[in-house]
């Protein structure tokens, strides 16, 4: 087994709000091989983005990482000083954001913004950084990069801006790329292009990629492994094939059923999971999903399910699994 490039263990990120303790991420664990694509899926508010921000330690008060470990190679990220962390961000771990329209500084040219990281992390001079930035723009498919270097963000379309942001994220050839719903703000035709570019870039850099999404189609085409989150907790974690072909958790099963397929029968209503997700502010004991779960047991009211290993590399947090094991 290859040494993982990133290991997250028992990560808990809580927000101390006036209404109570929001357990945005509550006990997430996973590891990432150096060239692996991990997709984190889940509904809005399930803690996907907070997990990503926690890895880069971008959590601002009232949020705090209260427990857990995040290791990059053998470096404990949570033990680093802020100064040391700044050297990791953008250099070893690159991040791509959801909204390309607002993720670029409107008052500087895109070239200057890409050069910034190169000069900061790789100590390049102005000239060298500029040439490298032009190359990067070229490599992410921006036509006439030499001329467009001097353009401002508002001269670009959404898809082009996302390309610029990808160029900025890969400028220092990071070991890990984190893309937080990189295509949500784009229209469908552009989405496919950007995903293809991400996949290309990931292969070219030979880096690991954490892709946060709620599009299961994207997951199927890009992921090596999948982490399904619900209300800040991990519900299922495993190989992409396993998750799609043998989902075990009732929530994952529900998700898979709700996917629109080409062979869907006309007139048959699309499956949906009843109810709305629990907002984990001072969550009651027991399973967060039980109120929406068809198969809920008595024990689901009182005990929080632990992760069970149902097969090699396949974890499921559900009491049903223990039942199945016991019988």
């Amino acid at each position, binding site marked *: 087994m290859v040494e993982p490039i990133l290991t997250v263990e028992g990560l808990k990120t809580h927000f101390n709000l006036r209404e109570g303790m929001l357990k945005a991420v509550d006990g997430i664990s996973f590891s990432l091989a150096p060239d692996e694509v991990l997709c984190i899926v889940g509904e809005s508010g399930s803690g996907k983005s907070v997990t990503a921000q926690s890895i880069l330690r971008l959590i601002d008060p009232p949020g705090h990482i209260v427990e857990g470990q995040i290791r990059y190679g053998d470096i404990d990220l949570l033990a680093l000083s802020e100064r040391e962390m700044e*050297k990791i961000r953008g250099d070893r771990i690159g*991040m791509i*954001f959801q909204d390309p329209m607002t993720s670029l500084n*409107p008052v*500087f040219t895109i070239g200057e913004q890409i050069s910034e*990281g190169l000069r900061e992390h790789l100590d390049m001079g102005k000239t060298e950084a500029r040439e*490298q930035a032009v190359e990067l723009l070229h*490599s992410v498919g921006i036509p006439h990069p030499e001329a467009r270097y001097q353009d401002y963000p508002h001269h670009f379309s959404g898809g082009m801006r996302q390309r610029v942001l990808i160029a900025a*994220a890969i400028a220092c050839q990071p070991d890990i790329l984190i893309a937080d719903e990189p295509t949500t703000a784009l229209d469908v035709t552009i989405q496919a292009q950007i995903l293809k570019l991400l996949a290309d870039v990931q292969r070219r850099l030979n880096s690991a990629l954490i892709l946060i999404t709620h599009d299961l189609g994207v997951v199927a085409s890009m992921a090596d492994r999948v982490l399904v989150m619900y209300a800040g907790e991990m519900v299922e974690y495993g190989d992409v094939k396993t998750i799609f072909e043998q989902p075990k958790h009732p929530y994952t099963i529900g998700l898979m059923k709700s996917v629109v397929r080409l062979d869907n029968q006309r007139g048959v209503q699309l499956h949906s999971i009843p109810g709305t997700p629990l907002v984990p502010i001072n969550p009651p004991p027991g399973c967060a999903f039980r109120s929406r779960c068809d198969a809920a047991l008595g024990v689901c009211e009182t005990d929080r399910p632990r992760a069970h290993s149902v097969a090699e590399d396949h974890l499921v947090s559900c009491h049903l699994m223990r039942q199945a094991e016991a019988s």
Partner: protein
Amino acid sequence: MTDRQSLDSLETHSPDNAASAWRIRRERMRFHLRTLRLAWYAYAKDNAALGALIFLAIIVLISLLAPVISPYDPAEAAGDIATAPGTDGLILGSDVDGRDILSRLFWGGRIALLVGIGPTVVATLVSLILGLSAGYLGGWFDQIVMRIVDVVFAFPLVLLAIVIAGVLDPGVWTVILAISIALTPYIARLARTTTLNVKQQPYVEAARSGGARDLAIIVRYILPNMIPPVLVFSTTLIGLMMVVGSGLSFLGLGIQPPEADWGTMVAEGRGVLRKAPHVTIFPGVVIVLVALSFNFIGDGLRDALDPRRRSR
């Protein structure tokens, strides 16, 4: 860790580094010139802003040249009392003391501009520092600074300026100091709000995720995005501060007679408002026009400072 060589294809091969460095420097120069030119186009597209700028340039020129171009001494009588424009060769007539109104308007411009621009510049600089640090640092520092600002803010601007000017010896510097203090809370609050607004923009988080330090974020992200609105607001306030300064002089707390000041001139003319309205009207109209000009300039600045409005 993976090796850095994997993107080898991205490395550039520059045959002649010195030459390309020179080429790039020249290109940067050109880029800055182009930005300036586009900013000017964006500004000049607004006719009111362009007109206001030309008008103010003339006023500034006249004020600077007042000793040379004034036909009479602004402090000495040049003719009969409150004569109509045109009599005795006085183009705008004379005031209640028989002084030439035109010459007094020329000289009064110096004080009006100083009183309008001086406090606004001081208050803006102080506000930028206060608002930026309070907004960016947040926490108890923000609380303390902003509560102090709120206390000052609670007093009406003119009233506060009157109180401050009242305890000091009257004069130009008193007016500037008084207005600076009274004005600061207004701009400081805007500076802080703008900082808070910019701070939570996704591009700031993106910058942090790219490893930018606090100083880099302040200098490259917060400041360039917060200065334009603050500057536009301040510019429009210059005109208002001139009026406030005139008001202080009107009340006798600012500029002392016989020194020429537009506000004092209006004050002196009110006694003969019915018989010789021009004594009040001329300085009054000038005050309004100059104050309006600063407003228009503020609007034009907003267009010039925003890259989105600078079309190619």
